[in-house]
C-alpha cells in the first residue's frame, strides 16, 4: 500500500491545499478531529433550528383552537422538527463524537479513510442545505401534473414556512405521494434524506474499517471502550438499514417524479409496503440515535464512580443484542395498520424481548454506581439523568408492546412522550454528558461546572415539565400531529404546562451556549487528566495534538489508562500507584514532544468538490421536466465526477523529503 512515483500527478488542476489555519484549512481538512468539530458545530446549529421549530409548535398548541400559525405551517414545522432533530442533529452530533474520539480511543492516528471522512461530512452538509433550500422553491411548479384530483392546496398556505416538507418525517404514502402532496416540498425531503443517507453509509464503512483494522497494538475487541463498541454496532445498523430506506426513497422519488405506481393505491400500489420498508429502516434508526449515548454514559459513569463498568461484556453484548433484535420489531409501528393478528402477536413478542437487553444495560449502569465513590460533576449529572429518563422511556415502551394497549396509545401524545423520553431524556442527555466530559479533550479547558449544573437542573426540570404531561394528554385522547384541538377536550391547561416546559428547555440551552462560549475562552486549563479517567484518549495532551499520539500506544488491559495509575489492595480497593503522577507527567511530555516526526494525510479539495455536485443532481431530478433541471443534473454529475477523478489522481499523502522517510520507517517499526 504505497504510492509509487509513477502515479504522482505532475500537476493537478489545483495546487494541493497546505494551510493549517483559516477557513481554507477547514474546507480541505481530512483530520478526523477537525471533521468532528465541523460536525459538532453544524449539528448544534441545526439543533437550534429544530428547537425553534419545536417552540413554534408549542406556542400554537398552548391554547385550544389557536391561530398562531396556519395548518400548513404547523404540518411543515412538525415534519422538519423531526427531520432536523434526527438527521441534522442527533446523527451528526454522534458522528462528531465518533469522528473525534474513535481514533483516540483505539489508539490510531486517524480513521481508515481520512478523505472519505471529509467526504461524508461535506455530503451531510450538502444534504442538510439541500433539504432546507426548499424554502426558496416553494413557488416553483410541481414536478408532475396532477390530474383528476381536486387541488387541496390553498395558495395562501404557501407561506415561507408552509413551503417546507409537510408529510411527516415518515412520509407516509399516499399522503406524501404525487397526488396528495403535489408541490416539490416532499421531493426535497426525500432526496435530502437520500443524500444524508449516503453520508451515513460512507461514515459507517469508514468507522467499521477503522475499528476492525486500526486498533493499537494489544487493543483486542474486548478491551475496546464501550463507546467504540457502540460505534461499531451503530455502523452495522447503518450499513444494513440505510440500503432499505434508500430503496424506499427511490421508490417514492420514482412515484413522484417519474410516474411509477409503487405506493399509489389508485394504480394498484400498496401504501402499507412503504410502512414496512420505512420502519425496517426506521426502527434500527432509533437505536442508531440512542446507542452512541449509551456508549457515552458507559464511559462517564465508571470514571465518576471510580469503579470499572459493571458487567462490561454484558453491556457490550446487550448493545449488540438490542441492535440485532432491532431489525425484527419494525411492525410494532404498524399495530393499527391492519396487519394480520399473527404478525401483530409476533411483533408484540419480539418487541417485548428488546426490554431484556435494555434492562441488562440499565441494571449494569446502576450497579456501576453502587459501591463507588461518586463525584457529582456536570457530566455525571447528565449521565445519571440519562439513566433515569431512559428508564421511563423504556418502560412506556413496554406498554406499547402490549398490542391492544398500543391500539389505544399509538398516534397519540403518549407516543410523543415515550420517544422524547428515549431520544431527548436519553440520547440528548447522553450527548450533553459527553460534551461536558470531553470538552477538555476538544479544547484543553474545563467547562464551568457551576454553570453546567445550573444548565443540567434547568434542562432536567424543563424536560420533565415538557414531556411528562404528554403521557397523560395522550391517554386522554390527544392525537399527534394536530394543529388544533377542541376546547371541549380540556387539553388546554396541560398544554400550557408543556409549552412552559419547552421554553424552560430553551433557557437551559441558552445557559449551555453561554457556558460553552465562556469556558472555551476562559475555562480553567484542564491538564492531561482532569477527570481521573480510565481510557487511552486521556493519555495524550489536551487539546489533542494534530498527530494524536506522540508515541503509538500499546494496550494491555481494558481501561488501560486507569491501570497505569491504579492498582488494587488485598480487599480489591483502588490504590493509586506511587508513580502515577510521574506517569502522567511523562505522558504529557511524550504527547507534546513526539520522539520521531510524524506525517499525516494532506488536506484535499476533492471531498468538498465531490459533495457539492450532489445537491445539483437533486435539484435536477426534482425539476427534470424543464431544461434547467436537465442541465442541473449534467452540471452536478460533472462536478462530482471531476471531484472523483481528481481524488483518484491525488495520493493520500504528498511525498516527503528522503530524510523524513528514514524517520518514518523507524516510527513504523515502533508501531508494529
Amino acid at each position, binding site marked *: 500500500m504505497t504510492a509509487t512515483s509513477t502515479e504522482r500527478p505532475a500537476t493537478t488542476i489545483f495546487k494541493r491545499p497546505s494551510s493549517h489555519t483559516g477557513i481554507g484549512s477547514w474546507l480541505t481538512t481530512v483530520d478526523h478531529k477537525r471533521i468532528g468539530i465541523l460536525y459538532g458545530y453544524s449539528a448544534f446549529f441545526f439543533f437550534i433550528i429544530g428547537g425553534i421549530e419545536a417552540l413554534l409548535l408549542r406556542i400554537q398548541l398552548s391554547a385550544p383552537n389557536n391561530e398562531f400559525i396556519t395548518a400548513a405551517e404547523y404540518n411543515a414545522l412538525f415534519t422538519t422538527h423531526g427531520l432536523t432533530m434526527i438527521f441534522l442533529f442527533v446523527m451528526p452530533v454522534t458522528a462528531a463524537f465518533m469522528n473525534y474520539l474513535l481514533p483516540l480511543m483505539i489508539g490510531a492516528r486517524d480513521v481508515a479513510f481520512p478523505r472519505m471522512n471529509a467526504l461524508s461530512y461535506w455530503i451531510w452538509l450538502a444534504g442538510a442545505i439541500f433539504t432546507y433550500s426548499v424554502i426558496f422553491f416553494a413557488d416553483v411548479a410541481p414536478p408532475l401534473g396532477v390530474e383528476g384530483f381536486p387541488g387541496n392546496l390553498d395558495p395562501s398556505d404557501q407561506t415561507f414556512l408552509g413551503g417546507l416538507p409537510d408529510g411527516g418525517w415518515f412520509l407516509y404514502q399516499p399522503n406524501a405521494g404525487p397526488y*396528495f402532496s403535489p408541490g416539490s416540498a416532499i421531493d426535497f425531503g426525500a432526496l435530502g434524506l437520500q443524500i444524508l443517507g449516503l453520508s451515513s453509509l460512507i461514515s459507517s464503512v469508514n468507522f467499521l474499517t477503522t475499528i476492525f483494522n486500526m486498533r493499537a497494538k494489544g487493543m483486542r475487541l474486548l478491551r475496546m471502550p464501550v463507546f467504540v463498541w457502540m460505534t461499531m454496532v451503530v455502523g452495522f445498523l447503518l450499513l444494513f438499514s440505510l440500503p432499505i430506506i434508500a430503496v424506499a426513497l427511490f421508490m417514492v422519488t420514482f412515484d413522484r417524479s417519474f410516474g411509477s405506481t409503487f405506493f399509489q*393505491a389508485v394504480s394498484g400500489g400498496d401504501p402499507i409496503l412503504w410502512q414496512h420498508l420505512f420502519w425496517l429502516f426506521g426502527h434500527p434508526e432509533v437505536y442508531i440515535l440512542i446507542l452512541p449515548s449509551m456508549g457515552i454514559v458507559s464511559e462517564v459513569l465508571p470514571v465518576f464512580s471510580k469503579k470499572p463498568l459493571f458487567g462490561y461484556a454484558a453491556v457490550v453484548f446487550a448493545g449488540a443484542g438490542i441492535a440485532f433484535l432491532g431489525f425484527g420489531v419494525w411492525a410494532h409501528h404498524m399495530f393499527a395498520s391492519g396487519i394480520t393478528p399473527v404478525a401483530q402477536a409476533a411483533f408484540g413478542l419480539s418487541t417485548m424481548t428488546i426490554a431484556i437487553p435494555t434492562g441488562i444495560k440499565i441494571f449494569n449502569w446502576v450497579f456501576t454506581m453502587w459501591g463507588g465513590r*461518586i463525584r457529582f*460533576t456536570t457530566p455525571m449529572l447528565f449521565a445519571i439523568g440519562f439513566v433515569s429518563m431512559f428508564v421511563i422511556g423504556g418502560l412506556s415502551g413496554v406498554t406499547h408492546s402490549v398490542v*391492544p394497549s398500543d391500539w389505544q396509545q399509538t398516534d397519540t401524545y403518549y407516543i410523543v412522550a415515550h420517544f422524547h423520553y428515549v431520544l431527548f431524556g436519553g440520547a440528548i442527555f447522553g450527548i450533553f454528558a459527553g460534551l461536558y466530559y470531553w470538552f*477538555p479533550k476538544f479544547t484543553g479547558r474545563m467547562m464551568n461546572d457551576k454553570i453546567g449544573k445550573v444548565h443540567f437542573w434547568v434542562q432536567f426540570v424543563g424536560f420533565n415539565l415538557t414531556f411528562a404531561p404528554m403521557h397523560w394528554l395522550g391517554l386522554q385522547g390527544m392525537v399527534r400531529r394536530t394543529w388544533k384541538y377542541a376546547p371541549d377536550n380540556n387539553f388546554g391547561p396541560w398544554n400550557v404546562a408543556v409549552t412552559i416546559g419547552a421554553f424552560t428547555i430553551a433557557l437551559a440551552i441558552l445557559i449551555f451556549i453561554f457556558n460553552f462560549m465562556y469556558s472555551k475562552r476562559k475555562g480553567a*486549563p484542564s491538564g492531561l487528566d482532569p477527570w481521573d479517567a480510565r481510557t487511552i484518549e486521556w493519555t495524550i495532551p489536551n487539546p489533542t495534538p494534530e498527530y494524536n499520539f506522540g508515541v503509538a500506544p500499546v494496550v494491555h488491559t481494558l481501561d488501560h489508562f486507569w491501570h497505569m495509575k491504579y492498582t488494587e489492595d488485598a480487599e480489591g*480497593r483502588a490504590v493509586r500507584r506511587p508513580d502515577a*503522577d510521574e506517569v502522567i507527567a511523562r505522558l504529557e511530555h511524550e504527547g507534546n514532544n513526539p520522539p520521531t516526526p510524524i506525517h499525516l494525510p494532506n488536506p484535499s479539495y476533492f471531498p468538498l468538490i465531490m459533495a457539492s455536485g450532489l445537491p445539483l443532481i437533486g435539484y435536477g431530478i426534482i425539476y427534470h421536466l424543464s431544461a434547467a433541471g436537465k442541465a442541473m443534473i449534467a452540471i452536478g454529475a460533472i462536478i462530482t465526477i471531476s471531484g472523483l477523478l481528481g481524488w483518484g489522481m491525488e495520493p493520500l499523502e504528498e511525498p516527503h523529503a528522503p530524510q523524513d522517510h528514514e524517520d518514518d520507517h523507524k516510527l513504523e517499526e515502533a508501531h508494529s
Partner: protein
Amino acid sequence: MPTSTAATGRRLGLVNMPPMLSGHRRFAERRRFRRTTALAALALIFTSCSYIEIDSPLTTFEPGGPFAEQIDRLFWPVFWIATAMFVIVQGLIFIAMFRFRDRPGAKEPKQVHGNVFLEVTWTVIPTLILAGIAVPTVQSVFDLTECGPDAMEVNVTGHQWWFEYDYPDLGITTANVLVMPAGKEVCAVMTSADVLHNFWIPSLNGKRYLVPGQETLLRLQANEPGEFWGHCAEFCGLSHSLMRARAHALSQADWEAWIVDQQAPATLPAEGTPAARGWEIYQAKCTGCHGVTFTDADGAEQYLGPAVDAFNGPNLTHFASRNVFAGAAWPDGDLTYDQALTEWLANPPAAKPGSYMPNLGLTQSEIDDLKAWLETMK
C-alpha cells in the same frame, strides 16, 4: 482522588484547577442532599399531577364497551408493573447517589467488575415478567381482531377530512356520526377514498387504519346509549386535526326509529319559502359533491348528486339529523350550531384549511336560505 490529580496539576504548573475540584466540601454535600430531596419531590409532584382529571371526551380511561374494557384491563396491570420497575430502578439510583457519594475520608471503592449471579437475575426476572404479560397480550390480539358472527356490518370510508358510514343491510348512507344500537356489536369494514386515515373512538376500541385499496376491520360496541367522541389518528394532510368523529349509541327503540327516519327520502320544501330558495342554490352549486335523495312532485324517489364511486362529499339527505358537520369538527368552542353553520358556509377553507368544499362566495341571504333548507333535511 482529587488530591492526587491536583498534585499532578500543580506539578505540571497549572495555575487554575478545574472548578469541580475546589473546596467547600461540606457545603457542597448539603447542597447535594437538598437536590436529591428536590428531585424526589419533583417525581412525586408529577405522579400526583397525573391524577388530576382532564375529563376529556376522548379519554381512554372510560371504556364504554366490552372491547375497550378488555384493553383497559390489559393496560393497568402492565402500567403498575412498569411503575414498580421504575420505582425499583429509580430507588436504587437514589440510594446509590446518596450512599456512595464522594465524602472526605471515604474508602476507595472496591474494583468490582461484575457479578454473574446478578446478571442472570436481571435477565431472568424481566423475561418471566414479560412472558406473563405476553400471554394475555396474544390472547387479546386474536380476540379483538376478528368480528363476531352476529355483528352488524357498517362500511366506513375515510375521506380528507371526514368519515362516511354506509349501512349495506339498511340502505343508509350517512357521515360524521356513526349511529349504532347499544349493546350490539358493529363490525366496521373500513377503507379509504384517498390517503391513510385512522378511525378511533377511544371509549369503544383502539384504532385501526383506513387504507386506500384495502379493507380493515374494527369491532365496536357500546354497553349503554350515549355519545362517544372520536378522532382520525393518522396524519392525513392539511386538516388532519379537524377530522373528528362521533358515535351515537341508541336504545333499541331509538335505533329502530332512526332507521325509519334515515330510509325515508327528503321532502321538497314548499314553494316561495327560504328553504325552497336554498334548495335552488343547492341544485345550482352543490350537486357536484353532495347527494340528496328526495321525493319529487310526482311522488317518485329521485337522487341528485355525484355518481356512485365518484369523488363525493357527505350525503345531505338527513343533514339536520346529525348534531355535527364538517368532519364532526363543527360546531366547536363557544359557537352555537347555527353560528358555526353560517361561518362554515361563508368560507369552508377558512374554517378547515385545504377543504375540498370551496368558498362559493355566498351572500348572507343565500347562506340563510341554505340553512333554512338544510334545517328541513331531518
